[in-house]
């Protein structure tokens, strides 16, 4: 007996017709394009438009402001991606460049994000005299500095860990450097990069709010956006407007997550190497929608083809030779020495310049005072991270061990981490002003208001991933109470907790600049600390002091990371890894 196999109707003709998914997806995309063009037009207006068109507290303007803010985020993200690809490649492919670029990146990461803006505002305004664009660039650059570094690190690390067999295959297939970059290296690093983009993005909202309305000395910039609206609401003591801005931001973040990141993460899942596939594949309804719609698929096809063609070109960019083929001739060694000498000289020159600039304006006394303020902020950060840990670690474990609850809490925690906590500051300030509380104590919680959630959601993730066999073994041997926490659960989640705490503490240092000095109308509250010092000197435009403050804070962050987090991270990686 044989089964008759019927001939099939060719399906190609049918595929050109729109289907029902197109009905939903098409307007969404058209709408997005429309909003994008109106948003961009505004940036070409002359700078006088900013003065004649002050921020209005009318809630009806909020959608437009939100759009401008979002576009700034998007522009910064694109800049970050380009930066990542170039910088990461250079650092990974050239040994000499790597020697310089990697430590630089390490330091760039430690500089408080809001520290950059004090300088860049002046710079960019001078670059585009008389145009809003200069101010826009300054804000975008500030967001860029909050996003780019960890993406670049992730890309650099991925490039260094491309499996050897895949490298050999691409050599065997005689791919050119350019082809190998697009066929192997970029896809391989995609999941890590997208995850870091997501983390960057959630940090970015905080800084976009902070960087839209800024005063450096006599230059005041207020770009139309959510941040400026908030600043206006604060100076007008308008709590309703603060409420509106919180609502707007909530909507924006949810939309951004659903329309940009969920689809990206779901899409990037296909780049994961097979052996790392373990958990359920991420899902996105937007991605499903796009993949199921015929017209959109057809429209996207030319772009896809163009990209593929670009990636297929043999273009040989003269990148420096990769590490393992480096020849060790005497010429090369001579170059090494010259390069090393050059770097030492460069370092010395820059340090001397920095020193002379600061010392010409401020003396030793001021420096000591700033270091002292640094210690106050250090105590504040340490105490609050510890407090947040005491609260969120047990709760996170209890949540993580209940899969249903964890599934509900996890997106909320991630949303809270992305939500710019500075929007909530006014609420606290009103409270503190009303009860005349001590700002040194009561402003402190603001430091971890936004970043504590990183601890929560990492601990929840850790507890969810805790192997069931271990739990069963603990139950079988009647391990309970404090012994259970000490020997079973805490070591199990420690690597996750450390990841969360490092992010939280980095965020806390950054947040100190905006949270140690706050205002509500004419009421100004300042706590003692390095953050407040940087904020005050920025407002008066005292550059040597700003620079001093930023240097000291960077130093504190670097030392804090080296002396506390790195050793802890090493313990977590080496001793407590589960497998």
């Amino acid at each position, binding site marked *: 007996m044989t*089964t008759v196999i019927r001939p*099939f109707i060719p*399906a190609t003709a049918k595929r050109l017709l729109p289907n029902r998914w197109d009905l939903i997806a098409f307007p969404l995309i058209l709408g997005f394009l429309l909003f994008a063009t109106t948003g961009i037009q505004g940036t070409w207006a002359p700078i006088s438009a900013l003065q004649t068109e002050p921020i209005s507290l009318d809630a009806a303007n909020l959608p437009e402001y939100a759009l401008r803010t979002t576009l700034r985020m998007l522009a910064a993200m694109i800049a970050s991606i380009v930066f990542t690809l170039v910088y990461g490649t250079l650092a990974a492919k050239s040994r000499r460049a790597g020697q310089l670029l990697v430590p630089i990146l390490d330091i760039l990461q430690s500089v408080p994000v809001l520290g950059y803006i004090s300088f860049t505002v002046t710079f960019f305004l001078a670059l585009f005299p008389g145009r809003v664009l200069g101010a826009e660039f300054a804000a975008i650059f500030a967001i860029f500095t909050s996003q780019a570094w960890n993406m670049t690190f992730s890309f650099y690390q991925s490039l260094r860990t491309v499996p050897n067999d895949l490298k050999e295959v691409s050599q065997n297939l005689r791919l050119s450097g350019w082809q190998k970059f697009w066929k192997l290296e970029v896809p391989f690093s995609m999941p890590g990069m997208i995850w870091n983009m997501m983390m960057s993005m959630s940090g970015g909202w905080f800084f976009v709010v902070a960087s839209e309305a800024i005063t450096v000395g006599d230059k005041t910039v207020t770009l139309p956006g959510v941040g400026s609206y908030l600043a206006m609401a604060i100076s007008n003591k308008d709590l309703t407007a603060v409420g509106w801005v919180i609502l707007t931001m909530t909507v924006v973040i949810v939309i951004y997550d659903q329309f940009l990141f969920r689809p990206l993460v779901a899409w990037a899942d296909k780049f994961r190497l097979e052996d790392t596939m373990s958990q359920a594949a991420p899902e996105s309804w937007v991605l499903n929608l796009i993949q199921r719609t015929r017209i959109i698929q057809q429209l996207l096809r030319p772009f896809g083809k163009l990209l593929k063609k670009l990636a297929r070109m043999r273009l040989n960019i003269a990148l420096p030779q990769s590490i393992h083929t480096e020849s060790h001739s005497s010429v090369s060694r001579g170059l090494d020495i010259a390069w090393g000498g050059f770097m030492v000289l460069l370092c010395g020159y820059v340090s001397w310049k920095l020193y002379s600039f600061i010392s010409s304006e401020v003396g030793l006394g001021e420096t000591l005072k700033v270091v002292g303020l640094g210690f106050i902020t250090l105590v504040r950060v340490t105490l609050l991270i510890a407090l947040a840990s005491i609260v969120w670690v047990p709760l996170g474990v209890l949540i993580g061990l209940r899969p249903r609850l964890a599934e509900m809490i996890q997106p909320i925690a991630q949303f809270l981490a992305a939500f710019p906590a500075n929007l909530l500051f006014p609420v606290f300030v009103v409270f503190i002003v009303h009860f005349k509380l001590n700002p040194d104590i009561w402003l402190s919680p603001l430091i971890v208001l936004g970043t504590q959630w990183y601890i929560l959601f990492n601990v929840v993730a850790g507890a969810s991933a805790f192997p069931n066999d271990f739990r*069963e*073994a603990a139950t*079988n041997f009647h*391990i309970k109470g404090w012994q259970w926490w000490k020997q079973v659960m805490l070591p199990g989640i420690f690597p996750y907790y450390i990841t969360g705490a490092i992010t939280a503490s980095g965020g806390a240092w950054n947040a100190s600049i905006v949270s140690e000095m706050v205002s509500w109308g004419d009421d100004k509250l300042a706590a003692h600390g390095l953050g407040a010092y940087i904020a005050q000197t920025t407002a008066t435009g005292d550059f040597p002091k700003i620079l001093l403050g930023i240097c000291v804070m960077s130093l504190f962050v670097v030392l804090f990371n080296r002396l506390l987090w790195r050793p802890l991270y090493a313990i977590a990686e080496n*001793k407590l890894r589960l497998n």
Partner: protein
Amino acid sequence: MPQETVTLRQEIFSLKHVDKGYHKGGEEDIQVLDDVNLTLHEGEIVGLLGRSGSGKSTLLRIIAGLIQASAGEVNYCGQPLNGPAEGVAMVFQTFALFPWLTVLQNVEAGLEALGVEPKERRRRALAAIDLIGLDGFENAYPRELSGGMRQRVGFARGLVVNPTLLLMDEPFSALDVLTAETLRTDLLDLWNQKQLPIKSILIVTHNIEEAVFMCDRIMVLSSNPGRVVAEIKVPFAHPRNRLDPVFRKMVDDIYALMTQRRSADTLHKVQLEIGSPLTEVSTNLMAGLMEALAAAPYNGRADLPEIGSKLLLEVDDLFPVTETLEHLGFVELRDGDIELTAAGKLFADYGTQERKVLFAEHLLRHIPLAARIRRVLQERPGQRAPRLRFEQELEDSLSDSAAEETLDTVISWGRYAEIFSYNDHTETFSMEDVEGAQ
């Protein structure tokens, strides 16, 4: 001969009419265990033998008090069991040693939980470590040890609390053949020399030889749902010789029992249904087995245990592939033997393309789900259908994970047979590229 007095020994554990089902979103239960009766007596090693899906690990966890039975009676030393009981220790397939504790700390953890004084704790832990042959490794971390050494820690941790009953969940299946054998004989030696405090051992396994080698009594479980289908007494004295003809005979008989049972008990031969679960079996493995069967020395017919050990296939691999081939009409199973059908012989002779055509024909004829997918695709105007459509249909009769596995299986077979194509990204079936395939 200590085995002869078994019937007079004290009863340690008893399960009567135990059922276990999982609720699925308010719908029907997925039955895992069905009316299981089991009694453990002092001085015996009992084996729970079954394939994946027989619920043997679930049964073990019910006895350990880690999960609750849906119905039935569970008694431990004459008392109804309520949660994890004292005196029941467990050894895990994955070892489940805490990686952040040293060997000594891992072994001591259970004693600490019982509130044993530190000095006494140390003394007992060191004694257990010595007994199990781990001295010298007290301060090592589990990650520094080989698999065999890790499982020794698992044993020491289980024994140190002086349990009445030792439960073992496939304790040797994560180890290589030689290491596993050493551990088995070491454990049996300790047991037979009465050096262990335990009164009874219950061991879960899918390895027939292991069960015959170690146990005094073997309970054979069927799959989906798990039922006790046979209880076999193993009368041989320790140490047992695997090459002894009576030993081989018993292994052969259990193979026959485990394959026969299915032909008598389940619906196969009668026909699969659309909602019948399928087990993931690669087409390469099917082709390889048919080729091996067709070639000398088997020439079309082989003894299952023999070909299984020759091809290094464990029961959990061997049974799914033989059953799949039987469903597809390529082999027949009888009395623990496997025989190629005419179609099976043809398949072994054919080249790649002819094989695919033959496979497609059998797939559409014998696997109703494959035929259904094909028909739905042909009837739809765009010749496309989302995965969800079939997944929902399957979930009426299967658990979520079984439905997923069944669909994944039919996808990989269908791709090989080129009867439909599937895009994992859009999760849709289609007829794209099917007809045009070279």
